[in-house]
């Protein structure tokens, strides 16, 4: 199977998965005990109002018909109205998504480069104190739920050592930059407001660290293990014999194959960053889509819940495709069409 075929196959499979996902989400939104019309309009609504709401939202039709209405709406970018904000869910999502994208982007960078750098360092100093510290941290990373890390960081930077602002996207005195992409750091840089950009970056840093920390140390450990295992392989011993400089050897010939296991794990971690963002954003009062989704969940706002999960599902599937392609690129057994 060559790379092109592999990618096409992967994308086709993802479409099936996304269709299935939409059915699952629709079913979840419909297993709710109670009358959706009553839940949306409240206890004071009149009978006519309820009936009108049902007709408007096709609630009297059979479930497959309802699904058909819902999915055609979703395909046109219409997720219905949110009952908590009284606006179109799609509009809400567009408003809150950039903040989440921003923080997930920075923590992705941290996750990738942090884990590779730390892993390399630990592999270089195998079985020393540095290696031991990484081991302890990677165990802690497994065992610490994201919200615990976030709360401990909040305790540290919010109260004890107030060098970095932790709550919200900007300090109170700052005005938000003009809306271009919705990413504050990028917008501020584009409009030339460097002070705002720096402030926004500082605000992002702690949530991004809280989000990335657990996965970063685990992936660093994977990089380290793969590097240690590969370093005794024959081709590297031969290279050493030929006198290839150690730096070239480490960076070009040792690191690349050692990244394969870590990259597939990183993909899972990056994708689940979005899931973990649910708690981190709430803790740091970050006005992102996860915070919106969580408040929708607590208020049983069904349209908003299904919209948010649908968006997350599509992003998750897309990230997985990208990861598979990167892995395929790194692994010549797949790239060149051999192996199985």
């Amino acid at each position, binding site marked *: 199977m060559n790379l092109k075929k592999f990618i096409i196959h992967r994308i086709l*499979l*993802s479409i*099936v*998965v*996304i269709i*299935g*996902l939409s059915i*699952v*989400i629709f079913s*979840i*939104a419909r*297993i*709710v*005990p109670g009358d959706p019309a009553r839940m949306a309009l409240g206890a004071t609504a009149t009978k006519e109002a309820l009936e009108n709401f049902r007709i408007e939202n096709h609630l009297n039709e059979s479930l497959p018909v309802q699904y058909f209405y819902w999915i055609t709406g979703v395909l046109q970018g219409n997720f219905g109205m949110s009952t908590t904000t009284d606006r179109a869910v799609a509009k809400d999502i567009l408003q809150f998504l950039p903040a989440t994208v921003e923080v997930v982007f920075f923590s992705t960078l941290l996750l990738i480069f942090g884990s590779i750098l730390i892993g390399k360092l630990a592999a270089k100093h195998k079985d020393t104190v540095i290696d031991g510290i990484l081991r302890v941290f990677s*165990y*802690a990373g*497994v*065992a*610490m*739920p*994201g*919200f*615990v890390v976030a*709360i*401990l960081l*909040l*305790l540290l930077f*919010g*109260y*004890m050592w107030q060098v970095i602002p932790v709550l919200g996207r900007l300090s109170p005195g700052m005005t938000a930059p003009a809306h271009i992409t919705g990413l504050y750091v990028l917008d501020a840089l584009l409009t030339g407001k460097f002070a705002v950009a720096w402030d926004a970056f500082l605000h992002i840093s702690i949530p991004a660290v809280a989000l990335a920390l657990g996965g970063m140390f685990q992936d660093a450990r994977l990089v380290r293990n793969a590097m240690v295992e590969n370093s005794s392989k024959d081709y590297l011993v031969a290279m050493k014999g030929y006198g290839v400089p150690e730096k070239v050897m480490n960076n070009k010939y040792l690191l690349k194959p050692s990244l394969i296991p870590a990259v597939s794990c990183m993909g899972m971690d990056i*994708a*689940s960053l*979005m*899931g*973990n963002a*649910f*708690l981190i954003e*709430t*803790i740091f009062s970050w006005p992102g889509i996860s915070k919106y989704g*969580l408040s929708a*969940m*607590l208020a*049983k706002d*069904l349209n908003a*819940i299904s919209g948010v*999960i649908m968006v*997350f*599902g599509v992003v*998750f*599937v897309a990230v*997985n495709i990208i990861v598979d392609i990167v892995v395929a690129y790194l692994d010549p057994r797949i790239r060149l069409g051999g192996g199985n």
Partner: protein
Amino acid sequence: MAVNREKEIQKALAFEAKRVEKRPILNAKNNRLENLKKAWYKFSRNKLSVVGLITVVIVILAAILAPYITPYPKHAGAFTDFANVCKAPGKEYLLGTDNMGRDILTRIIYSFRGALYMSILVLAIAVPIGTILGMLAGYMKGTIVDTIIMRITDIFLSVPAMLLALAVASVLEPNLTNSMIAVTVMWWPWYCRLVYGSATSCRQENFVIGADLMGAGKMHIIFKEILPNCMSSIFTKMALDVGWVILIGATLSFVGLGEQPPTPSLGQMVSDGSRYMPDAWWMTVFPSLAIVIIILGFNFMGDGIGDMLSKGDGKNG
């Protein structure tokens, strides 16, 4: 005459003793003992696994004996003592008290009960479902059954697990049972995927083909031939998963979708405590530490069980 008879009896007894020694049942008993010793050796070679086992045993015992060993068993419920609100850790309250004057240590130990109950029940339901579906799909690889089961599994694995659990828990009433349902819904696909892998490799093995040729039924092949070969990976994953279920459960209760107050749960204690930071830091820090310790314990033990069940010397298992 009498002497001869005695000799004969002794001879017979000696023969009998030798025969008994060779009896297969007794041998099997010895073998089992030997196997146990070997397993323990593999398990205990990594000192961390032993630490994990000890932690897990302590946590389980503490949860079972909670009413007898906690200093203030009454504090596990809706109890208020305004004289002792937010007391710092000290002699009287080892880990301090919360905003209602309740002992944190007591509440942590009681919340182990809900956490363990949840993980046992979730795994008891999710593992058989996932295993049976995975074996079915693996054995019938290439048929429509395989396609349907594995595509459904893919769909469930295509959303972040935490998100799906949050969504299911949120549309149901918030309580412990519903949070368990939510976690179970997202948990079985992982076992399905795991067992599917072992089952597909098993079905081409000679013993399965042999059983098929001898006219064994599908049920026999799936449960008697394939299942035993999947057991070690299932058990290893289960031991590791107890910690994960506790983590997800704590997360759900942190956002208020798990066990409802006044029954204590770890996530809810952390979330309550975060409102009293930094002055009453003990309200947040100790329940957080308890979560970390319990999950680490199960993870270390799970690694040990993985070593134990792995074939070969288990050096890197």
